């Protein structure tokens, strides 16, 4: 365990233990057990079938595509696929749960144990265990703010296919939890099994958080439900950790409970409708038969998986010689990687990576736009780097060119031409500038020749300045050395 995740308390350190249950919506057209649309954003109850509204006698029939995506996701999480799994009913009453039960998988989920490797900001990696992945139905939506004494129910989400991905309690900080969700989202997006859109609720996390003295037994945990951004996940965990530590340090005890995160205060709070002890009375859904998968079918899916973030990252390091950090940033998203590979084709790949991670990402961040919206396209970034490599411009000038590219959307060659940014490599012209600088600084020349080597840099700087940065530094170096030796 890395010690830097421990929390300093009033009288000693605390260790934070976090496990996440992520609900990821399968990117299907229709719902898990009905033919109604699973699309986001329809008017109330427009995407509802008789099955979703739990009309008497209406029965579930499973969507093959959803099963396939659950298996592909399991394979992408390096998890075991269970060839026989069972759908169970989880029984409880709630206004947005029309059947009075959620069809889920309890004892025999479709996917068993797997793992996710996360990379932390300091470049280190850690494996987070996956306990299971199961398929289940989403519930509808209750709106509590439409009427003073009523709640309004919209069943559009009722029956939408979810993959619930349950981690082991392997995370030790909000940063690790955030890295885990980012990585999981990247894997889901690479696979195309979930769009990962957290604002629309396609990906939500329930955070199980507890604290303990390092090495002690697990503490009592709380579960904060339905967090729909990575920032909220981190905030909720940090506020929950602070709350628990404070309670424990004041001699209190933590109550095992479900909590809500209030985005306006950044704090978690207890659910006012304290549900009485849950007794979900799970049992196999008699409307459905056991789900049997063919081993050959699973193997076929495995063979046809796309390249996933870890493999991509390894390949970027291997093929382009990138650092672990650059590679992990570029492999976070398939479009980012595609952009990079296009830009790097035939170029100095490490230099392209550096330009992308530092200059491009920095600029896009500042502009608040995505890579897809970038005014600098992949080939254009490649061209800019090519001009550095072939000596047309210096790295310094390249930054000015890049700024103009962002501003105007024009390519590097056009800007270099327009602005006359070409580097001066003509030794005659440079000699003239050198002579002028040496004449103007005759005293320094004497000092240099008297043994003050450090002044060499000063002469280079003066020449570059005189050339307005356009002199080729290699040529300047070369000529300066020769002249000063005299």
């Amino acid at each position, binding site marked *: 365990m890395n010690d830097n995740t421990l929390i300093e308390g009033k009288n000693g350190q605390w260790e934070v233990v976090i496990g996440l249950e992520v609900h990821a919506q399968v990117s*299907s*057209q*229709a719902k898990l057990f*009905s*033919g*109604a*649309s699973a699309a986001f954003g329809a*008017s*109330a*109850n*427009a*995407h*509802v*079938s*008789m*099955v*979703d*509204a739990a009309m008497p006698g209406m029965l579930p*029939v*499973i*969507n*093959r*595509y*959803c*099963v396939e995506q659950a298996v592909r996701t399991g394979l992408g999480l390096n998890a075991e696929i269970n060839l026989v799994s*069972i759908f169970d009913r989880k029984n409880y*009453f709630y*206004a947005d749960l029309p059947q009075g039960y959620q069809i889920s998988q309890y004892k025999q989920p479709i996917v068993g144990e797997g793992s996710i490797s996360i990379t932390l900001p300091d470049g280190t990696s850690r494996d987070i265990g996956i306990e299971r992945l199961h398929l289940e139905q989403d519930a509808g939506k*209750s*709106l*509590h703010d*439409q*009427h*003073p*004494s*009523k*709640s*309004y*129910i*919209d*069943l559009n989400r009722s029956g939408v296919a979810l993959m619930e991905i349950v981690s082991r309690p392997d995370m030790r900080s909000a940063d690790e939890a955030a890295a885990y969700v980012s990585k999981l989202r990247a894997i889901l997006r690479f696979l195309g099994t979930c769009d990962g859109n957290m604002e629309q609720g396609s990906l939500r996390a329930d955070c199980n958080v507890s604290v303990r003295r390092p090495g002690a037994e697990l503490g009592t945990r709380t579960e904060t439900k339905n967090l729909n951004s990575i920032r909220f996940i981190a905030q909720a965990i940090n506020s929950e950790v602070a709350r628990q530590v404070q309670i424990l340090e004041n001699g209190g005890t933590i109550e095992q409970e479900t909590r*809500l995160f209030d985005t306006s205060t950044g704090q978690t709070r207890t*659910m*006012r*409708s304290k549900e*009485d002890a849950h*007794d979900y*009375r799970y049992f*196999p859904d008699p409307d*459905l*038969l*056991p*789900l*049997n998968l063919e081993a050959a079918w699973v193997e076929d899916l495995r063979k046809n998986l796309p390249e996933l973030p870890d493999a991509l990252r390894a390949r970027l390091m291997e093929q382009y010689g990138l650092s672990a950090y650059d590679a992990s940033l570029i492999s976070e998203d398939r479009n980012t990687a595609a952009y990079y590979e296009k830009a790097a084709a035939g170029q100095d790949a490490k230099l392209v990576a550096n330009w992308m991670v530092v200059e491009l990402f920095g600029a896009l961040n500042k502009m608040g736009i995505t890579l897809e919206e970038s005014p600098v396209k992949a080939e254009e970034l490649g061209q800019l780097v090519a001009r550095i490599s072939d000596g047309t411009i210096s790295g310094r000038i390249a930054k000015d060119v890049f700024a103009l590219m962002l501003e105007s959307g024009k390519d590097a060659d056009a800007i270099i031409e327009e602005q006359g940014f070409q580097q001066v490599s003509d030794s005659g012209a440079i000699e003239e500038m050198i002579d002028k600088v040496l004449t103007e600084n005759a005293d320094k020349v004497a000092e240099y020749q008297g043994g003050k080597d450090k002044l060499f840099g000063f002469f280079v700087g003066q020449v570059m300045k005189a050339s307005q940065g356009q002199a080729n530094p290699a040529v300047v170096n070369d000529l300066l050395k020769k002249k000063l030796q005299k």
Partner: protein
Amino acid sequence: MSIDKQTVARIAHLARIAVDDGAQERLKAELSGILAWVEQLNELDTSHVAPLTSVTGHALPMREDAVSDGGDADTILANAPEKAADFFVVPKVIE
């Protein structure tokens, strides 16, 4: 297994069925009687018997991923005891 009134109240709440005091008393006796009767199954040693989850032994049929239903909120809401706009309406739920 003989169950007490408290247990009757607990399961009635789990099942969301209002049961008044007198009915609880009556149900306590009736349910205890039924439970005692079904417990004759304990005469059988079933420690090596797999529970039966499906009587047919068939595999689960699957359908293709296509939108073939929904799109008609009026029909879905047609029988609702209380509705507003296109929503079902229930007493306010406090989270």
